[in-house]
């Protein structure tokens, strides 16, 4: 304990077992005051358990945790005073206003009455929530909720701040603000732990603890891990033909450990000491060349965990190619939806071609979900039309619904039904019967390797398998159009890659995919992206096109996230009252 600073956290041989599983198996590490420590790892790695242990809400089965000089078991009451903790779904009281939430936490932390008002003002200013102080927390956007959660956790100036996945479901603009706030806090000497499944966030941390299956796989600055990948990351810019097919072929090469689509390019990570010859041949065959790029933390993460999945989706192989009567799979014109005085979607028009991946992006509350729901017939437009495979949703809703597959956020599986029953339900609800129904279910079971899990409850499955099951359910009736609503929110990179392997495969068979997402990486997979802001469509282009549009000068290279933020800021400027 000697070298631990007063405000930091000391983990010594921490073990935590649950009846089914050992969540943490001997973790020892030091978290320093005055810096931001990222806690990263795939789903189920033990991140949340470790957070709860540090917050004194769980007891370790072996080992000790010292937080700001206090033992989490022996001196639990000191932990509660010295630690600000924001749980994963920060349970704000949604029926209380912003100010009432703040006031509750101020009093629970026994702030002297004289100090309370000043503290609120400081926190409201800090979080820029002052204009909304009277609003009920339930009526805030996702990003604002997280900021309010942060404000509540900061009440009483804790020495240590624990944030459990604070950016899940938060758009890039709000995310940037959260980062700014946390940066100011660490500068003032606070120890901040930020757990995340977003690896671009881990890259921004000073120090990273990487958990995998309950063990500490890496402990150090992110650059040290990324450094191991030097010379293994490549880009294949502007390939001829189908870049998804190129990615699939690349991933099937033994020399390639991982790969993603990046706008018009394909990004690959080679195996350590791999022979690059076959890769160069592949690149040349697509009229592109192998371009060495700087490794990213995500490359290192995936490689540390054993590389990404292969490139071929068995389900896609099995599907018959889709052919539609018309070229346009999904279309809307002048789509508008009002809720009372509030216009959630304002005069939105676009067309999605068959076989396209079309992304719908925008900050929380921009109207993505409303638009999306109207396009798949879950919500009636106030004015305007929406069409799926040429069928008007207002007139032939049920026919149209039979031609589309829908995968909702959080997978929407039935927790009380077994895997088999979920599949049977999905088949039944789309009107499959008899031998055909059985055959489709069997196919899905084989393709997604669900056979051994047929009798388990969906909640007992790992996230990756849940995702497979949800996808299987939405593909049961072989829809030519697939709607995905934030399909990979909170899902780790490896599971996410597997998911996109399937989607890419389906698209190559002519399936059209509509997707909403907060992941800028995912936007890169899209052929075209529609950016929504304040209920309106503010930009519609290819990912590379949007980056070019947002760039200040011709050769500035932006990430998708930077482009997103700039376009939104530009829209804000143009709307300033004259």
């Amino acid at each position, binding site marked *: 304990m000697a070298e631990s600073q007063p405000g930091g956290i000391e983990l010594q041989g921490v073990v935590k077992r649950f009846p089914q599983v050992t969540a943490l198996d001997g973790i020892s590490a030091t978290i320093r005051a005055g810096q931001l420590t990222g806690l990263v790892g795939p789903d189920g790695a033990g991140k949340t358990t470790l957070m*709860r242990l540090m*917050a*004194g*809400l*769980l*007891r370790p089965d072996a080992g000790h945790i010292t937080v700001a000089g206090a*033992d989490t078991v*022996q*001196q*639990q*009451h000191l932990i*509660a*005073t010295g*630690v*600000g*903790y*924001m*749980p*994963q*779904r*920060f*349970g*704000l*009281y*949604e*029926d*209380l206003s912003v100010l*009432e939430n703040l*006031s*509750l*936490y101020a*009093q*629970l*932390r*026994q702030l002297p009455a004289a100090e309370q008002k000043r503290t609120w003002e400081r926190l409201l200013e800090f979080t820029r929530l002052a204009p909304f102080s009277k609003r*009920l927390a339930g009526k805030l956007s996702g990003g604002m909720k997280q900021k309010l*959660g942060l404000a*509540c*956790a900061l009440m009483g100036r804790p020495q240590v701040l624990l944030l459990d996945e604070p950016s899940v479901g938060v758009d890039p603009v709000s995310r940037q603000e959260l980062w700014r706030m946390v940066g100011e806090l660490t500068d003032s000497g606070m120890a901040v732990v930020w757990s995340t499944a977003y690896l671009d966030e881990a890259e921004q941390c000073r120090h990273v603890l990487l958990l995998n299956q309950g063990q500490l796989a890496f402990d150090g600055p992110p650059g040290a891990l990324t450094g191991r990948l030097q010379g293994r990351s490549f880009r294949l810019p502007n390939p001829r033909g189908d870049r998804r097919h190129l990615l699939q072929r690349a991933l099937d090469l033994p020399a390639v450990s991982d790969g993603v689509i990046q706008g018009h390019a394909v990004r690959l990570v080679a195996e350590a000491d791999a022979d690059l010859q076959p890769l160069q041949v592949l690149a040349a065959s697509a009229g592109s060349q192998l371009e060495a790029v700087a490794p990213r933390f995500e490359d290192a993460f995936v490689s540390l965990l054993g590389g990404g999945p292969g490139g071929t989706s068995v389900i896609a192989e099995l599907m018959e190619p889709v052919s539609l009567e018309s070229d346009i799979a999904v279309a809307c014109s002048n789509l508008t939806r009002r809720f009372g005085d509030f216009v959630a979607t304002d005069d939105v028009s676009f067309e999605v071609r068959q076989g396209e991946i079309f992304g719908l992006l925008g900050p929380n509350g921009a109207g993505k979900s409303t638009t999306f729901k109207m396009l798949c017939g879950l919500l009636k437009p106030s004015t305007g039309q929406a069409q799926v495979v040429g069928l008007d949703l207002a007139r032939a809703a049920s026919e149209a619904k039979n031609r589309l597959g829908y995968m909702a956020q959080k997978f929407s599986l039935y927790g009380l039904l077994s895997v088999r029953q979920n599949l049977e339900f999905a088949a039944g609800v789309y009107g499959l019967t008899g031998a055909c129904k059985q055959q489709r279910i069997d196919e899905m079971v084989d393709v997604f390797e669900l056979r051994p899990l047929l009798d388990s409850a969906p909640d007992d499955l790992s996230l990756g398998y849940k995702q497979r099951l949800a996808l299987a359910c939405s593909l049961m009736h072989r829809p030519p159009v697939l709607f995905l609503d934030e399909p990979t929110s909170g899902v780790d990179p490896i599971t996410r890659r597997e998911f996109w392997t399937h989607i890419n495969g389906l698209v190559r068979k002519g399936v059209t995919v509509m997707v909403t997402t907060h992941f800028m990486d995912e936007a890169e997979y899209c052929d075209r992206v529609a950016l929504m802001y304040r209920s309106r469509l503010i930009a519609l282009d290819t990912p590379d096109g949007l980056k070019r549009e947002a760039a200040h000068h011709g050769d500035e290279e932006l990430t998708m996230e930077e482009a997103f933020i700039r376009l939104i800021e530009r829209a804000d400027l143009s709307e300033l009252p004259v």
Partner: protein
Amino acid sequence: MNPHMSQRFSMQRLLAITRKETLQVFRDPSTLLVAFVLPLVLLLLFAYAVSLDTRNVRIGVVLESDTEAAQSLAAAFAGSRYFAVTPTRDRREAAPLLTAGKLRGYVVIPQDFDRRLQQFPPQSVVQVITDGTQPNTATFVANYARGTVQQWLQDRGVMPTQPVALQQRFWFNPEMETRRALVPGALAIIMTMIGTLLTALVVAREWERGTMEGLFATPATPLEILTGKLVPYFVLGLLATALTTAMAVWVFGIPLRGSVFTLLFLSAVFLLPALGQGLLISTLARNQFIASQVALLAGFLPAFLLSGFLFEISSMPLPLQLLTHLVPARYFNSALQTVFLAGDVWPLLWPAIGAMFLLGVILMALVARNTRKSLER
């Protein structure tokens, strides 16, 4: 410093939680619905719908004899305001109607009716057949048919001396009596709903929405959290008592012979086990759906069935009678009936108060044992 010393109780934190909980009560329309609208609905139901008074019950009169006496008795049935009579000549006509549910019973005036009348003492002059699938109505038909016959006999001077008890049955006004006994009982049900059901939901809701984790991460102690939650519901319970009593007295004309103070005091004591039960359920369930189901099974149904509200305890089988001693509503119901119908008879009230208090303390102790400031199960 003792490392095990836990945080001192803080009034400021308790008030903060109470205030928060109160705000939530007023913002959640469903809570107010359960607390103020549901009592009114229940009271109306119990006062009007659940009544043992029945009129115009459909019966058949099978007239097998044509004598003047038989005709006269048949006319007496037809003239009764309690019956709507379908006259027949043959019991083979009446029986299918009973089976079909078109009649609730039938009276047979037999061929040898006059001969039976002449017997002394006269016995079984008529036969009454009732539909046993609806026991209350069946009893009603049997009793009122007997009453009609008695009255008829008396009017004809056949039976000058009649047992008084049978006559009284006829004049008995079931409506008033039912209402008087049911409304105090309804109060016990309403308080169980508020105490047990609402409280069972509030803690489970915090677990479900994840707010409990945030609350546990603050210095607030379990005692403060639980007490802070109880206070608003305690007050809500007393308000509902006052409202229900006011309705009972002024709208339904139920006399309140005891004092309002005693009534509120009884309610306050009863809230102890009721809230304790609710809290215990929600600390164990951590899920609103399960909590509400358990609250219905363990709180509402016993209060309904085992409190002596609808079914008299003394007529239950012995094991059930013993079980009723574990139901707080049983004591509350009997104490309420005392206060409403008899007055502040303290010798009768004290044992009930003692029993409710004891149950409350036991339940609260169980809650305290099961609430630790930790997410461990």
